[in-house]
């Protein structure tokens, strides 16, 4: 409870709210695209590197492999639940439902970063290799979603046709598995691992000290973008769809809680696994959907992921996941 209130009044959440309010009020405040991309690169660079250094320091817990498998499993399974739920309660078409489902199986790296920042503020340690788990969870959900669409037949026919044939070719797979955020996260993780604490000593003034401040500025921009999305396509989301965006993170977190208990993750590690599962992608998956499922409407999946689930996780979800993880760990 205290944590929840502390979180709601943290600079991080407040700057997100500032961005949201500014764009809903149609202020001209905006962060240049190149600057926003640079901030995102910085955050992935720093979080990946820190994770690797932490593995170098604490040694590789035997559970890395099992944690990776658990992450892949969560990412692959969550879309089935999300798809079933959406088809049951919302009027979304199979294609739209599958596209949304892919987003909820995959992860939001900024939500992960925000949770790790909350952990650090509270002095809770976590397994450094969760950065690798985060990277591993980005793509399996996309496969599940495409499988769901193919099974539905309707769009599966198109997928077998000439236009469709081109859609999930080798090129597309390469794009999905080598997308920038996966490569940077894993790359920085490995470099952090190799260079260890001595490497960290050299660059910590860059990647550690200013980290939270950069995160605040980035969240300001996230708020601006989310607000613009809500203004432009908020009306397109029906109430059941919005409720889905609030309930689904909790369902995913519950699944992750069971696995975290099985894996015997530390308190911090469990919080991050819950957060990853509960978070919804808004970078890697949307790009993949535009290529693989162009008929799915971005105004639905993007607005839901960025305008509903992201703020929910940031403001309310993370404290819940800290509390829930406390039930099984620490």
């Amino acid at each position, binding site marked *: 409870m205290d944590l929840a209130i502390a979180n709601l009044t943290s600079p991080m959440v407040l700057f997100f709210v500032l961005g949201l309010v500014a764009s809903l009020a149609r202020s001209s405040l*905006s*962060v*240049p*695209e190149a600057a*926003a991309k640079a901030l995102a690169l910085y955050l992935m660079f720093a979080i990946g590197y820190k994770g690797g250094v932490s593995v170098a320091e604490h040694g590789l817990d035997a559970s890395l492999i099992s944690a990776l498998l658990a992450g892949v499993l969560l990412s692959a399974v969550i879309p089935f639940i999300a798809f079933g739920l959406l088809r049951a309660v919302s009027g979304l078409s199979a294609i739209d439902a599958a596209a949304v489902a892919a987003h909820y199986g995959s992860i939001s790296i900024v939500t992960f970063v925000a949770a790790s920042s909350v952990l650090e503020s509270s002095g809770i340690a976590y397994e450094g290799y969760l950065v690798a788990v985060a990277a591993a969870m980005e793509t399996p959900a996309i496969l599940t979603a495409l499988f769901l669409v193919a099974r539905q037949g309707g769009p599966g026919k198109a997928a077998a046709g*000439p*236009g469709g044939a*081109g859609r999930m070719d080798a*090129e597309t797979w390469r794009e999905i598995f080598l997308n920038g955020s996966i490569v940077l996260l894993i790359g920085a993780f490995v470099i952090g691992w190799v260079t260890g604490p001595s490497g960290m000593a050299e660059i910590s003034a860059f990647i550690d000290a200013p980290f939270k401040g950069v995160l605040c500025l980035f969240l300001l*921009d*996230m708020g*601006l*973008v989310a607000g*613009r999305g809500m203004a*432009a*396509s908020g009306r397109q989301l029906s109430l059941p769809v919005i409720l889905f965006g609030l309930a689904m993170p909790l369902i995913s977190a519950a699944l992750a809680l069971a696995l975290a208990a099985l894996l015997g993750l530390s308190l911090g590690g469990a919080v991050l696994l819950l957060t990853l599962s509960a978070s919804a992608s*808004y*970078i890697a998956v*949307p*790009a993949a959907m*535009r*290529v693989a499922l*162009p*008929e799915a*409407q*971005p*105004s639905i999946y*993007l607005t839901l992921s*960025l305008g509903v689930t992201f703020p929910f996780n940031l403001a309310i979800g993370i404290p819940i996941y800290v509390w829930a993880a406390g039930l099984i760990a620490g």
Partner: protein
Amino acid sequence: MQTHQALRVEIMIESPMARRLTDAIEAAGVTGYTVLPVQGGSGRSGTWSREGQITGGMLAVVCIIQPDRKDALLEAAFSVVERHIGVIAISACEVLRAERF
């Protein structure tokens, strides 16, 4: 100065598909094109702006071609743009060094 008839084909396309478009264009035998950044726009799928945009946005691809390449280029481009967000416009133009196109 001596000029030659040519066509200017302008294609607005969502960025995740841009690479596929230029690959298709090149496969159709057109090796010259220029890609311009796009800041925002509006169409049947709504209004969007690049500023603060997290994913992609759009790009404009301009190809100057000899008139006899028109059909090959349009077919190649349309096969990519068809199911995606995008617009194709063709206009007549003149160029200086026809052998280049």
